[in-house]
């Protein structure tokens, strides 16, 4: 086992020092060291997307990202997006459209949807399906999630 390395991470706007082995994933640091447990580990091989976090505004897999790669980046987890308008609207439409059941995949999908809606204010259903295909959900069958994201985009554009 190799020597621990001292890192400075910027997570949810707070700078923090951690000491980790170079092979430690960002997901393990966030969940275990910083106790940010909204992100979940569903597969630990980059397929399911339950561990998505924003790194400099883009959704990345925290299970495939090494903690050392996140140094100097602005890392945001779902916990750090509490004041984000897009997240607030998404949470509302997710509730209304029943876009979650067990809720295990939900934080990763919300983070992904924030990335999508930050860059595109009027995505087509096809675009939403395409982006969402990077995340797995075993409960809902995706239909309500797609509807909730489309509706959130409409509301954020100010369309009643």
């Amino acid at each position, binding site marked *: 086992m190799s020597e621990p390395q001292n890192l400075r991470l910027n997570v949810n706007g707070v700078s923090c020092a951690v000491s980790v082995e170079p092979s430690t994933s960002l997901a393990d640091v966030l969940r275990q060291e910083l106790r940010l447990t*909204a992100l979940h580990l569903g597969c630990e091989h980059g397929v399911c997307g339950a561990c998505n976090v924003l790194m400099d505004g883009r959704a990345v897999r925290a299970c495939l990202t090494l903690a050392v790669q996140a140094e100097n980046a602005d890392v945001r987890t779902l916990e750090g997006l509490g004041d984000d308008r897009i997240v607030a609207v998404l949470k509302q439409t997710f509730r209304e459209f029943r876009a979650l059941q067990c809720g295990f995949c*939900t934080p990763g999908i*919300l983070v992904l949807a924030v990335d999508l809606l930050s860059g595109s204010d009027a995505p087509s259903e096809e675009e939403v399906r395409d982006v969402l295909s990077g995340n797995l959900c075993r409960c*809902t069958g995706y239909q309500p999630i797609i509807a909730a994201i489309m509706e959130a985009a409409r509301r954020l554009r100010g369309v009643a």
Partner: protein
Amino acid sequence: MTGTDKTLIGRSMPRIEDDRLLDGAGCFVDDIVMPGMVHMAILRSSDAHGRIVSIDCSAARLVPGVIDVFTAADWPGELPVIPMRLIPLKSSEPFLQRPLASEKVRYVGEPVAVVIARDRRTAEDALEYLELEIDALEPVVTRDQAESAAGDALLVAEAKSNVSAHYLIGRGDIEDAFARAEVTLKKSFQSHRQTASPLETRGMIADFDRAAGRLTIHGASKVTFFNRIHLARAFDLDTDNVDLIATDVGGGFGVRGELYPEYYLAAEASRRTGRPVKWIEDRREHFTATNHSRDVDCDLEVAALRDGTILGMRGRVRADMGAYVRTNGNVVPAKAAQFLPGPYRVPAFACEVLALMTNKTPVGTYRGPGRIEANFFRERMLDMLADELAMDPATLRLKNLIGEAEMPFDTGDLLPNAQKVVFDSGDYPATFKLLLDECGWQPGAAEPSCERLPDGRRVAIGLACFNESSGGGLYENARIRVAPSGEITVSTGSSSMGQGVETAMCQICAAALSVPPERITVALSSTTLLSDGVGSFHNRSTVMAGSAVGKAARTLLDIARAEAARRLNTAPEGLDYDNGVFSDRDQPDRGIRLAELAAMLSDAGGLDVESRYEQAPLGFSFGAHAARVAVDPGTGDVEVLDYWVVEDVGRVLNPALVEGQTVGGVVQGLGDALFGELVYDDQGQLLTASFADYLLPTSTEVPNIRAVATGDYPSPHNPYGFKGAGEGGIVAVAAAVGNAIARAIGPGCEGPCQTPFHPERIIALLSAAKGKET
């Protein structure tokens, strides 16, 4: 029935689970950290079949950070035998699993040794230092090999065969039916090996307090009370001193929460080290350690008259059980056989059932166990029979579906434990017609010819019918407590697997007590909250736990009414009750609140009632699916374009919850029918142990799904008239999609008789059809 009851039952009440889950503030087992907690990793066999020659743990013990290592030889006393929970059969007993392999290993993934270390990485890395020597034996991988196994191919030598169950079921005079038949058809079908793949893997924290004689397990679910009894026995503890604590869980679908070896291993690890021990399964491990399902084949024969009247069916069902009979393993072959006649009259039926042991991961239930298989076999057969008779498949079904006048319909003894099954209510043809309207199918019209898309793909619709039991599991308990503060807490033996059980229980409790749902707290978290209970499986939570909540509420209100009458110095029948307040009918300003009564009764234990709802006969929902698929004749690719489900679920508690269950179930079924397959090589190695190899459906592969739940035929067997709604979405998907593919390929092809519908299989069918045309 009070005003609140009328408005709450049948309403899409918002889910009470959503706020915490949307904030990422759910509490899943891996989110829990306990003081002094250590981690466990399991060495699993990498051989499918062999004799253990030696296990050397000495090097692993020296790895920095490793706290303890143990194997079967270190177990104090006899290794416990993991029992059968459902359909326990004497013939299965030699094939029950123990928590650790001792003399032999029987599947890739079988636990052999346990390492406990300060963190998960250290524990997992230390597995590399365990030296396990295995003398390999010829593995048994197929049903045919299992059926004829002898000598070294026997999984358990003393059992003298690899057949763990063999029995016959049936009704009517099958010989006569086939003697009278004008048409008979015989086909072989196969349903592939699958697994549920909940997005959260399994996990737990065991905390064994030797001094107090207490065991606490966090991360339990599904059937906590059964598991509690057997863990108490295995570790010689009082049942009351074993507490199984349910957390939020990332999906269950049948596979989570059964009494698996890891429960025992984590408990023993904690007992040995005196520390809380966490185990979190990784995804690769999940693929070999968590129950598989649906690996069933069937030879099926149908006897009919030329007008389409089905006289009889006979079949031979063989289930590949894997290496051990798990807690609910016997459900799979039993239900695959029982549901073969399905929602049709089929006056004569006979089926031989074989459960066969192989060197593969053991099989258990996965959402719709046995039903998926039976519906696929039968519904494909009916479409082939319709073709044989040159009949519209919808007309053939309408002719044989059981009508309202025939209810209740006695199905005869179709289970090995002689449990009598009667279909309770419904008008199956009427509900089926609703589906035909939805998907625009005209029964009796000329065969809708297969459509061609401009890109050359062939498009057709396939139909399938099913019926489905719900409830079951003998009884369920519920407890309602009213605190002097006015807070009402409801607990049931059913726990939530993420499908909204908390919301359902809150809704029923609020309706029954005629109070706003906001005043109710749902506590499903611990086995200490109730004296006893059963759990969440077989479409049962709303039916069984919901009925128990209703019963507890009635008893609680009776007690409260008597006390209110005493306090108000009036007769109980002279009191009105609404919204948590009893008032004197003659003097409406004189009233007393439930909370006040709870305070007044505090010396007598307050207002705290636990009730048991005993199982009445099962309720049966009926439904039908239609799939419109496009088949690419060049690549064999199948795309599902549209999907319709109509299901009579009895009285509907929460339409949005039901729709969510149905749509989610359909998509799960589509993934199972089209993509995910657990493939073994001839050495018993699992080749598909990641999400890169075992494919799940994603948002780009799912069609628009229309789900209609009718409340037309309430079950007469429970006070609310509920029928289960958790499995109707998944159970006929393979059947409907298979029938659609067969119609898209067109005449001259018998269509798919095996799942999954992978492109290479479709190409083979297309070329066979072409060969016949020319």
